[in-house]
């Protein structure tokens, strides 16, 4: 859905973004993570057709960002990191303004505005002036604005920055809902935990360089040459379980501690399934059988330490 190829942006001597490439599939939620000044907004503004690249290209839903910005604008909903609102406008007028700007005919507009206000829980603020809204409501209003033309792709730059914890949670819930509607979402943040629970893939950027990108599993696999299995078994089965595991060609080593076995494993998901069947067939009382995942937090720390590069 989004394809970035070798995007570079220089400001004079300073390289803000250096040779960035990644791609995001349809329906994915891509978390764009990096500290302040890493180049997230620069990349996002490029994707939103607001910034000419020094070099590089990008395609959104098949349209070239550089060559056909108008077509790109039709398919994206963009929320800048730092935006203002017009003075003297009410909430519904604000949405109406953008709906007209997106060329939505009046007969659909009424329904869309109502729906969007409902979705973002702003219906009771319909008649309020936009510049009197709180920061959290303005963020939601801006998100509402990005939805009026029902774009398949949402590009959101730090949608939760500056919000209190509660508003942050609400924003998260909203994004989850949007994901459920099948939208492809690119969302940036400098705080990892904001994105951890609902991103399907992430990209980590630091000082203009992309350190890692891909689905979370892919990145984890990059980080470890092998997978780690944790198997918990009933009292009497530890020895038998250990024997079955050591028998398997995919298993490198097995450690046992109490009733929990930790095994280094190489292979696909199917191999893992077969292994479980074999354990059960040989009468091991398996209480739990899972791949040990490392948390996004750990991934991030590992990446920024330069382990993957």
């Amino acid at each position: 859905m989004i394809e970035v190829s070798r995007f570079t942006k220089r400001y004079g001597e300073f390289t803000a973004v250096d040779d960035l490439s990644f791609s995001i599939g349809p329906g994915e939620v891509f978390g764009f993570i990096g500290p302040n000044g890493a180049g997230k907004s620069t990349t996002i503004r490029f994707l939103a057709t607001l910034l000419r690249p020094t070099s590089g290209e990008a395609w959104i839903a098949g349209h070239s960002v550089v060559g056909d910005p108008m077509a790109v604008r039709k398919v994206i909903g963009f929320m800048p990191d730092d935006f203002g609102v017009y003075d003297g406008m009410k909430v519904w007028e604000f949405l109406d303004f953008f709906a007209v700007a997106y060329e939505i005919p009046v007969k659909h507009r009424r329904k869309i505005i109502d729906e969007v206000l409902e979705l973002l829980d702003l219906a009771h603020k319909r008649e309020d002036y936009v510049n009197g809204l709180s920061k959290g409501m303005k963020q939601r209003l801006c998100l509402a604005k990005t939805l009026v033309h029902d774009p398949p792709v949402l590009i959101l730059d730090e949608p939760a920055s500056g919000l209190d914890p509660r508003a942050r949670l609400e924003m998260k819930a909203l994004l989850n809902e949007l994901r459920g509607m099948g939208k492809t979402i690119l969302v940036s943040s400098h705080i990892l935990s904001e994105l951890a629970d609902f991103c399907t893939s992430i990209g980590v950027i630091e000082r203009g360089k992309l350190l890692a990108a891909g689905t979370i599993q892919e990145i984890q696999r990059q980080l470890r040459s092998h997978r780690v299995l944790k198997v918990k078994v009933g009292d009497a089965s530890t020895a038998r379980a250990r024997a079955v595991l050591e028998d398997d060609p995919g298993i490198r080593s097995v450690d046992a501690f109490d009733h929990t076995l930790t095994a280094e494993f190489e292979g696909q998901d199917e191999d893992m399934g077969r292994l479980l069947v074999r354990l059960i067939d040989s009468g091991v009382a398996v209480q739990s059988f899972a791949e040990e995942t490392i948390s996004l937090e750990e991934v991030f720390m590992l990446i920024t330490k330069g382990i993957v590069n």
Partner: protein
Amino acid sequence: MFSNNPVLSRELLVNLRSTRAFVMQGLYASFLAALVYFSWPGGDPEWGGAVRQVSPGVARLLFNLFFLGQFFLVALVAPTFAAGAITGEKERKTYEMLLASPLKPLTILVGKLLSSLSFLVILIVSSLPLMILCFLLGGILLSEIVRAYLILILAAGTFGLLSLACSSFFRRTSSALVVSYLVILPIALLCVAVTRNDDSMTRDFVSIAVLPPWCLAIWTLVVVVVNRRLLRPPDVGSEGNEVIDEAEEMKSAIGVVIDRDLFPDKLFAPAKRTDLMPDGTNPVLDKELRSEIFSQGTLMLRVVIQVSMFISIFLMAVLLFWRPDWAGYYVAYVITFNLLVGPVFSAGSITQERERKTLGLLLTTLLRPGTIIRAKLLAALRVSTVLTFLLTEQLLLAYVLVPNLQTRFWTLPVYLLIIATTCLATTTTGLMCSALSRKTSVAIVTTYLVLFALFVGPVGLKLYMRDFVESVSESKLSAMTISSPYAAALSIVIPPDKSSMVGTYAAANTPPVRFPGGFAIPVWGMFLMFYPLLSGVFYIIAYVAFRYRWWRAGGTS
């Protein structure tokens, strides 16, 4: 308060360190030097022809020119710095920090005043050597020079303080600036009228006994008012945004009330929508006219309308009814009004989107750059034209009632055309400067400079050349002034009804511009042909500049 004033020292550092200040100062000094060089008695034969006699008359002429020039400089420049002094803090969102600091309001006020006037004072002082030269020519008393500087300093202080007061009452520099100019305009005209008086007794009396106490009174009043305003600022909403409710504001309004449902107010402020826009609406135009115009409250517009109406009544009595042959000067007033007010609505139109960080939102929609820029032009043009034409009501009245004007009824449409063309000129100039600048304050000041150069510069140059350069034909002098609506308005001749005044009438006559083919076009005709072209060029520049940014758009951050 003076020696250890953090506001003052910070501002001085920032203001005077800028290269712009040095460049402006250098330009000004060389301009003055050139002026003196070319008008120096017995100067360059290429310019002056025969060597002129050293006469006290020339010295006085030069002296008067200097004084008037500097006076206008003070009236123009003092507000550009002072009107933005406090609104600038509001726009940068540092206002609350400043208020919450332990600084006394008076310290802030004095710091702001001195820092905004410092540059002006340097400009004035840099003209001192040239004034002394005039003094050396003879014919001028030292006391006159001292008095001239006294008046200039008083004027700078008064105008600066008035602008500061405006600055503390408005939220945007543009509003504060235009109201400052409007308040200063009648005061400045009055001062000039008094000091132009040839009777030296009245002059001495006014400048020594009347002016200083009045100035002091104004200063005290302004300081008290601003002090109170800074001590107890009105409630500022979240992030320093006052949310202005029109209905609420109307209740507490004094004087003129703007009612969007009534004529003529609805011409520049159509009623707010109660339902969605119909299909095919230009959303930007709709937004500008219905939402943005009063977004900062109606205070600015109400003050503008009231002050301009107030002045116009006096001017109408004198220029239209008592001396109908001076009708051109009334039109000149209307032009001045537009010159001051017009740029406010257009010069911020693009820069404000950037400053309020809404440009990014606007540019990612499907709106084309042409649609946006056209909407900005039409909205600004409409507001500025309607406000300006409110002042032509008096003109219409005079044409109905005054016999001398009735017989020359064809001059009315010409006057109206000149005014309309001026509106177009000020708006397109503002739009162009807005598309080329990054900040509204810069755009507005640039617009004023360009318009001043186009409108007033040629007239000044013409007057100067007529007095000091002898070998230029009257037709050439006229040709020089076709960019000035003032020259255009005054080139229309309405003979006085009293035959005793025919002499002055002949002197005021502006000859038409002659072309090689032998035909001649009056100055107003040239003006009416020149501006549609120039406005077109300005509009295209605005469009191209906007489009360039629209595609590159790097300017939105």
